[in-house]
């Protein structure tokens, strides 16, 4: 892995992303969903924090959408 890239786990899948960017900048690469919520390393990240949340190597991202439930 180069210094310009980080490796993250998004919904259980390994992804390589450009280093030094925020969650808001990476999101178009991570999902096409309109309605979703995010947790990083099992901590909820509110939408208001996307622009200042910088992803780092090894982050585990959970990106969830509405689903059927009982």
């Amino acid at each position, binding site marked *: 892995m180069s210094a310009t890239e980080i490796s993250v786990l998004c919904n259980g899948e390994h992804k390589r992303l450009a280093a030094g960017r925020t969650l808001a900048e990476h999101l178009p690469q991570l999902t096409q969903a309109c309605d979703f*919520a995010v947790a990083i390393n*099992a901590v909820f990240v509110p939408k208001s924090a996307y622009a200042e949340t910088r992803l780092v190597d090894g982050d585990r991202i959970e*990106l969830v*959408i*509405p*689903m*059927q*439930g*009982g």
Partner: protein
Amino acid sequence: MWQLAEQTLDSRLLIGSSLYPSPRIMQEAIRASGAGVVTVALRRQLPGAGGGEDFWAALRELDVRLLPNTAGCHSAREAITTAQMARELFGTRWIKLEVIGDDYNLQPDPFGLVEAARELVAQGFEVFPYCTEDLVVCERLVDAGCRILMPWGAPIGTARGLLNPYGLRTLRERLPEITLIVDAGLGVPSHAAQALELGFDAVLLNTAIAQAHDPVAMASAFRHGVCAGRLAFEAGRMPERDLAQPSTPVVGTPFWHHK
């Protein structure tokens, strides 16, 4: 009309959104049930895993209040994070709190449940804990700030009805100020009627409707079962007796015989 937290509702039936043959049948079944509250979940977006825009669009066409769940969580920490994501995603502070302690019968973990409930109440959530009918666990959940409790009738998806009517009746008697909803394990409308006859405020079910041969017809049947049970509770049942008593007057019986 009745009050669930801050919401005034017509129906005492809460319904799940899962396991229907299609989003369209889900929509029709929810309408036929008369339910004003529908449970939903959140999951990773995976190919072929359901959910997605079709489901979400069908649900948004309905005039219902959403109750997101934390299904699949096995710890208080997972459940708290899931609830926080649900609050933002669905725009509601209501959360059906599930912390599973045993994968075989999906029995709630009472310790994780109380821990998560305390934290979520402190964060401003209206917590609907999916719990067992254990009185002490329920009292601890009330101590944690829950105003609503959702004890199981039987394990999720088993359709066995109320396995412990004594325990459920005890909860109703001991926690008269708490909103009690039987959640899970119901199979037929008579199970729902029985819960309402015991004085439970409502029932929540999913599989019994979604997996019926005709989900829309079964949704309607449950709607009537819930109404019948509530009316019976309000009417006040007669006490049980050990000995038979004739309902037809004895005085004036023809062909009266003396031994």
